[in-house]
């Protein structure tokens, strides 16, 4: 008899607690502090599961909702940079995340410096990826002021990229010098650079779910399209 009463009482207590415990809100899911954790410590702690965590963070930061700390719901460049940095450290081979974060920072927030910092970070872990070098070159050429572009630095980067093991898949039989020359010609091609910026924004728009970010990208895209006309 006593055990039945104890069982019924504990069951009632469990139900009562389940009823009173607050249900999770959408903001609990969207605003996730893990995105702003210390990335190296987080990666070391997550062990072999770091790539799966990177997937989850990518879904949190982009597909599910916006990137923002606290209850501001306004993602500024620092927050976008920190969130992307965490994802890049968790999975430096996850190129689309790096591409998205760096392009967003350079094109929408005009923070090429932060975008290049992300690229440098990815290169520490993944120094033999042609795509990362190419992204760096494209970002500098497309978003840096023309008078600030250092041709020698660009040529050195392009040469280094062309000598990487997987570069042949993309460059094919093209000679390294020809490729470097093409890139330096593109550096002075205003029309081509604007076309690249428009393509970047279209890609960002396609990969963004958050309405706030979407409006921001659309606005910038309209400005560029108007300039072209």
């Amino acid at each position, binding site marked *: 008899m006593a055990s039945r009463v104890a069982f019924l009482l504990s069951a009632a207590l469990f139900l009562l607690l389940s009823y009173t415990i607050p249900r999770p809100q959408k903001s609990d899911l969207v605003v996730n502090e893990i995105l702003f954790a210390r990335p*190296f*410590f987080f*990666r*070391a*702690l997550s*062990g*072999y*599961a*770091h*790539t*799966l965590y*990177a*997937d989850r963070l*990518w*879904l949190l930061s982009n*597909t599910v909702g916006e990137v923002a700390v606290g209850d501001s719901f306004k993602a500024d460049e620092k927050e976008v940079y920190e969130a992307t940095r965490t994802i890049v450290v968790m*999975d*430096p*081979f*996850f*190129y*689309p*995340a790096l591409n998205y974060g760096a392009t967003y920072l350079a094109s929408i927030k005009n923070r090429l410096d932060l975008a290049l910092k992300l690229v440098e970070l990815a290169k*520490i*872990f*993944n120094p*033999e*990826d*042609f795509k990362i070098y190419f992204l760096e070159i494209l970002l500098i050429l497309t978003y840096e002021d023309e008078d600030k572009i250092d041709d020698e630095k660009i040529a050195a980067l392009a040469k280094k990229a062309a000598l*990487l*093991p*997987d570069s042949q898949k993309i460059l094919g039989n093209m000679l390294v010098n020809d490729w470097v020359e093409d890139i330096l010609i593109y550096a002075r091609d205003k029309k081509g650079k604007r076309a690249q910026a428009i393509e970047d924004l279209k890609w960002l728009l396609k990969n963004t779910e958050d309405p706030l970010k979407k409006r921001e990208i659309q606005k910038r895209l309209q400005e560029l399209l108007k300039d072209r006309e």
Partner: protein
Amino acid sequence: MKEILAVSLFFSKSLLKERATAIFVILAVVMIAIALGLSDINIARRFKLLEDVLLTSQMFLLHIAALFYAFEFLQKERTLGLFVLPLSAGMSRGRYLVSKFITLTIMVMSIFFSFLALDAVILYFIEKEITYMLFWQLFLYALSALVLGFSIIFFSNLVSLMNSVIYAVALFFIGNGLDEFYIYAKHISKDALMQYIASLLFYTVPNYSIFDKQAEVVNRAYISTEQFYLYPVLYFFALLFLIFSASYLKYRTKVLRFGE
């Protein structure tokens, strides 16, 4: 060699009969079902999330299996005195120790092969191709699980069984963060003392990060043949030799008791 294999097979058969063996396979099937449920979510590359969930869950199960079988075997050895019969029949301590290592290898590898068969079928039907890199990564995780199990056997010669598990798991976590610590010390902080500590740890703690190439595999990124195939296997054999030698040095003079 014959007697080593006979003893190993005898021990393995008794461990295979444990209910946990079936539970590991059932859990793997459950995780495959979860991964399939998530396979529609397209992040960067289709099936990336599926492969990530598959590899990560099976990595966990392989390590838990190594931990479980090492603990279960050593526990039985201490309570039932499994060593009495082989040693009294004239088997040397060194050979008996080899059979302990082989038993653990057979157990972890049998779990690995069951996962491999499940993955091969599932991935062939979903991705319409056989991704050998993925299977090799799973094999590397099996090697990592073996190093964890061997460490427990080694520590059990020095401390109690529970403590040996704690030490081995602690080493596993430190060894897993070695790469991150090294990169942080060398490229981010650039502090001389930190760089020295990071280099020191590289020579004193098993580097489990060397078995982790999952990011390159699921992102289909470039990875050199040496880094993917050669170094992890060579490193495993170097560790195996080291752990076995250290265990043997202690085990050959150890006073063996059971039923405590």
